[in-house]
């Protein structure tokens, strides 16, 4: 029964959100049927669409994992956006500026740079929270703006492609030796090895949380920081490590977008991943394995959006609206219960586990 609820409630949430989305489209004078036909064709309808859905879902897997991991420690990482952006920036720099390193090693260096940048950007709010009690929600949001402005400055100035034919603010392309090979031989499929790395990452985070000492400490801190301290867990250190790991996952997302897909970086390319990642994590019920299907759903919505816009002239922003509606029904399962007259067991009620995110607003944890 519990399994039925953990699958059924998200499914009903998605369904309800799609129906409400159709109502909004209809109310603003659009053709909802044609819009959803485009959404279907662009996400699952053709083999190439499936490849695109999976390509889009790769950053969502990492972003979702980043948020889910932080949730377990009672931390709310809204900074995924900035961490992904800086991950891309660091990895693209290593990709084009470091020369004469043979293929797999250069690729590893580029990935490592992205992961390190993300981890550093994630660790800052962790350190501030542990040392001063600054709430990570405010700090991570502010760091997003800092990262966005820094990226905009760097890609239009110091890191801009010197090629005079390129007017856009974008970096040079990374060298061949730093690129991740495509997964399929046919070039019309953009799917790359990142999807395999993403699945492995989900399994790793699951293992880390459920089978390792660090994971036990993370969950203890998330459940009750006072009790964790009493039991001898270094709460401050755990907060910093969790935020760094969370940032590292987001940095990996950014690095993979560079080495596997775009091969260059430009300002404002990851706009929106941050909030979407929160939705992915919540839809996956804060569980690393649950993040995988919800990332594919969000990847599908993103991939189908442009086909939808092409077919029905409905702006792709409707996807954001649908995502927010999904999130409302996921965050408040009681709404679904009330709408569909189903009984939801108590343990399925809480989204982020037993973690209370808000209770520590501005207080010192360590």
């Amino acid at each position: 029964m519990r399994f039925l609820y953990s699958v059924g409630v998200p499914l009903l949430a998605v369904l309800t959100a799609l129906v409400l989305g159709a109502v909004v489209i209809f109310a603003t004078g659009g053709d909802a049927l044609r819009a959803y036909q485009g959404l279907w064709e662009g996400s699952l309808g053709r083999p190439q669409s499936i490849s695109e859905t999976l390509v889009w879902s790769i950053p969502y897997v990492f972003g979702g994992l980043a948020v889910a991991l932080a949730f377990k420690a009672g931390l709310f990482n809204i900074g995924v956006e900035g961490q992904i952006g800086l991950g891309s920036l660091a990895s693209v720099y290593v990709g084009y500026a470091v020369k004469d390193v043979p293929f797999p090693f250069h690729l590893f260096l580029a990935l490592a740079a992205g992961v390190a940048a993300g981890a550093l950007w994630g660790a800052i709010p962790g350190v501030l929270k542990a040392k001063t009690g600054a709430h990570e929600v405010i700090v991570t949001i502010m760091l997003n703006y800092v990262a966005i402005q820094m990226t905009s400055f760097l890609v239009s100035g110091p890191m801009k492609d010197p090629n005079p034919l390129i007017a856009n603010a974008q970096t040079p392309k990374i060298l061949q030796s730093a690129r991740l090979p495509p997964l399929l031989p046919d070039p019309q499929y953009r799917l790359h090895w990142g999807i395999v790395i993403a699945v492995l990452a989900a399994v790793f985070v699951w293992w880390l949380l459920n089978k390792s000492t660090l994971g036990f400490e993370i969950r203890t801190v998330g459940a009750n920081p006072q009790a964790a301290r009493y039991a001898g867990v270094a709460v401050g250190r755990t907060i910093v490590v969790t935020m760094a790991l969370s940032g590292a996952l987001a940095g990996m997302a950014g690095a993979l977008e560079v080495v596997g897909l775009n091969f260059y970086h430009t300002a404002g390319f990851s706009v929106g991943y941050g909030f979407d990642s929160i939705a992915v994590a919540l839809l996956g019920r804060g569980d690393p394995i649950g993040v995988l299907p919800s990332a594919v759903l969000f990847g599908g919505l993103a991939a189908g959006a442009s086909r939808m816009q092409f077919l029905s002239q409905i702006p792709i922003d409707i996807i954001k609206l649908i995502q927010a509606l999904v999130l409302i029904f996921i965050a408040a399962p009681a709404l679904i219960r009330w709408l569909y007259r189903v009984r939801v067991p108590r343990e399925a009620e809480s989204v982020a586990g037993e973690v209370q995110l808000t209770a520590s607003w501005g207080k010192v944890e360590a």
Partner: protein
Amino acid sequence: MSVAVPAIPATATRGNLRLWLQIAFWAAIATVLLVLTGVQFGPAATISILAVTITKATPITLGALSGICSERSGVVNIGIEGLMLTSAFMGFMVGVYTHNLAIALVAAMVSSALLALLHAVLSITFRVDQIISGTVVNILAVGLTGYLNRQLFATGAPPGLSVLPRVDVAGLSAVPWLGEILFQQKPIALTAIVLVFVLHFCLFRTRWGLRTRAVGEHPLAADTVGVNVNRLRYVNVVLGGVIAGLGGAYFTLESVPHFEPLMTNGRGFIALAAMIFGKWTPFGAWGAALLFGVAEAIPTAMQLQGINVPFQIVGLLPYILTIVVVAGAVGRATPPAADGIPYVRA
């Protein structure tokens, strides 16, 4: 989750000496900087910086007052950014269709209040984690405004729209210095300043304020003496929505006559930092908002004086300042004791 109730809740005391010392400290720094500016570029530059400061502080002040309204009763609202974005758009949209700024202003506040009501329903009735509920509000606002903006105004804003005119408060606006800074502002900026005083009075001098603070500090005690905790929280969250709606209206009805996606640009989050820095008091929050206002006014002034610094670098100032502020480099803040905790009647 048991939360120890402090013997003397720090937020409940008004004569908070440390807060005033901090404000004095920052005011002193600001004064020195402004005097230096005046010496270097003439008094007109200083006056213009101060006037721009008050203008730029307007949405932050209103956002912070909205946060105080809600959090003093125990409901954290990180959706203020979303409330302001939504009301900015709705005010713009209604303004386009009616060509009536008064109706547009009301529409902005109503739309924000409705979205705040959603936050109240989710977090008070359904007891969704308030941070998550606030995030829902933010995502919904981005989606709703982005979609409607592109669907309705794909070709850009129609020309010929106006913004609220400057109000010259009779006689006062001609007063040198003070009049030029304070009384040549536009209506929402002036209302924001008035609201600081009004909210302070209401919070600390009226029955509503006493009940609000009681519910935010110790809901069980308030309930015991007959205050309807959740009803009061509903009222305060929606009232906060109305105030945030005024803050959103600033963007499209007072600042510029058009809407851009994501145009609030983090002001709602900065407002929360101002609220925390101001220790959940209207005057403290206003002081903090003015500090953020200076951080925004200085880059503008530098550009006017022809000092060439990349805008992305000076544009970082408010965000970095926010981090410094919440990191408590200038003192620890204690939120209302029951902030963020749903109330369940035992």
